[in-house]
């Protein structure tokens, strides 16, 4: 391998996984959450297992300049020789140990290796909200609680890289909502880079900074989440109701009388129902393509509160369906609108056309549930 960067996670894995011919290259910053997104069976989990050393495929892998695998140089570190944290889809807690025993398992071993603790036991316990669970038996925890313990356990092993394999996939909607804020907090209060495998676009949009789109064992697109999302699936005709974009916004003000929150996006105002955020907080909006309508004249007398002026940058017709996607630059960010091809033709929506984007549904993704408390809240 030539030139490993101290600030990046880099690697490439090649080989056959069943009928899949996997050839996956990764080169992402060694910070923040990078989502590996793709349908089931595209090889996401295999990539993660290779990164952890649980599986040996041809290739190389390095984390922040530290070479974990380099087949050309005859380097392959086994899992216990890598500073890695792995959160499996199933929490996989040790049933013979208490919650505390589980948390201490990796911690003790990293201390024994003389590793400097960057994460203190109490801090991780606080961060993941495990204080009241320490003496419990894993068998008596809810699914969400178990997964929180699993994340805490992985963190306490002092990883240089945290790997998360669809940690929310096995949970029901309520447990998901319960655990997401913890993952978000983890993201904002820790510096450890995370590779986060998911096939859920909402999760990716909410949590990740950058993403890699994976299909049939290959990376077919990568970059910051906002950029990748706005183009995701543009070349496909199948209906993807979750397609959309994310916009980073700042909380500008609240209107307690009307129960609204005003958000600022590059000087444009977006209004949403009162959010549990404080003025100045940074949040992430997700706008699905199917929730955006377009008009060529400024509409009046309208119940839509969020009408953003912009210019069409690209149109994509989905040949075998009734729909087309239109990318609109609203100054700073882009919106994606899914409209019928018929409407596109009638409105003559070409590149550069001035349009008004009418936004119906917005989900405010981060931080969705309150403000993180205590130390974790310091930004």
């Amino acid at each position, binding site marked *: 391998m030539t030139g490993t960067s101290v600030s990046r996670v880099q690697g490439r894995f090649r080989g056959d996984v069943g009928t899949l011919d996997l050839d996956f290259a990764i080169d992402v910053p060694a910070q923040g959450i990078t989502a590996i997104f793709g349908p089931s069976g595209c090889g996401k989990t295999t990539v993660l297992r290779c990164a952890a050393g649980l599986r040996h495929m041809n290739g190389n892998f390095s984390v922040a300049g530290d070479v974990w695998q380099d087949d050309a140089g005859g380097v392959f570190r086994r899992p*216990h020789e890598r500073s890695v944290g*792995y959160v*499996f889809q199933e929490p996989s807690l*040790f049933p013979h140990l208490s919650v505390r025993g589980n948390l201490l398992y990796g911690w003790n*071993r990293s201390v024994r*290796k003389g590793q400097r603790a960057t994460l203190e036991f109490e801090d991780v316990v606080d961060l993941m909200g495990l204080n009241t669970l320490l003496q419990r038996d894993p068998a008596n925890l809810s699914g969400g609680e178990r997964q929180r313990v699993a994340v805490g356990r992985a963190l306490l092993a002092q990883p240089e890289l945290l790997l998360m394999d669809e940690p929310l996939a096995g949970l029901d909607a309520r447990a998901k909502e319960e655990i997401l804020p913890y993952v978000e907090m983890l993201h904002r209060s820790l510096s450890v880079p995370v590779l986060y495998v998911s096939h859920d676009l909402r999760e990716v949009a909410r949590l990740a900074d950058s993403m890699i789109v994976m299909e049939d064992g290959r990376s077919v697109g990568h970059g910051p989440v906002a950029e990748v999302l706005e183009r995701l699936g543009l070349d496909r005709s199948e209906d993807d109701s979750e397609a959309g974009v994310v916009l980073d916004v700042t909380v500008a003000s609240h209107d307690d009388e009307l129960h609204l929150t005003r958000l600022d996006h590059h000087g444009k105002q977006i209004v949403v129902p009162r959010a549990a955020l404080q003025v100045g907080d940074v949040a992430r909006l997700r706008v699905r393509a199917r929730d955006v309508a377009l008009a060529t004249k400024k509409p009046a007398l309208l119940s839509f509160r969020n009408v953003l002026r912009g210019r069409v940058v690209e149109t994509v017709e989905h040949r075998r369906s009734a729909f087309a996607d239109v990318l609109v630059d609203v100054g700073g960010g882009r919106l994606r609108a899914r409209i019928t091809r018929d409407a596109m033709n009638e409105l003559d929506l070409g590149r550069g056309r001035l349009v008004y984007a009418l936004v119906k549904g917005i989900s405010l993704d981060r931080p969705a549930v309150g403000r993180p408390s205590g130390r974790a809240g310091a930004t």
Partner: protein
Amino acid sequence: MTSVADAASLWSAIWLTLELAACSTAILLLVGTPLGWWLCRTRVWWKEVAASIVALPLVMPPTVLGFYLLLFLGRDGPGGWFAGLAGARTLAFSFEGIVLGSVIYSLPFVVQPIRNAFEAMGDRPLEVAATLGARPWDSFWSVAVPLARPGLVTATVLGFAHTIGEFGVVLMIGGNIPGETKVLSIAVYELVETLQWRQAHWLSGGMLAFSFAVILSMLLLQKRTGRRA
């Protein structure tokens, strides 16, 4: 009409049997645990061949096993050579000899539950342990053994009880030497042969009760650990 001598010989048989079972069980666990682990983890093609050899005593008549052991342990076999090192003529008709016989005879009863327990555990706990920085030897002791505990308990109980119940192998290679190889099952046989029904009743009844207690406690134990897991 039990004489003092009879009682002493009875107690000697009981004591010898317990000693034999304890020694055999200890060796069985020492040999059976790594063997069960190996059978569970290895990918060599002849793994089931090895498993079959271990399981042979399940189907082989004990007398056949005893016959081969006799040849093996006797003066002209490797056992005799070993015995020569210790200044004896043969390993047959000795306590060490019947311990070896018992170990081989009870091996499948110990290896099978241990192997099953390791297999039921799956790879995941070991993978978790590895990503948490545990070396293979460390994760074996800190994760695999505790998780396989129900299987290890079953193996211990079965190995112990099965050794107590064996007859054919001991008869073939041990003979009937009081204080050396005369264990309970042999004693019962001898009592019946010599028409001492009363003592035979006592001994047989005792062994029946013991066997029942062992099996019952094992089932109850499994139920408890099964509920916890």
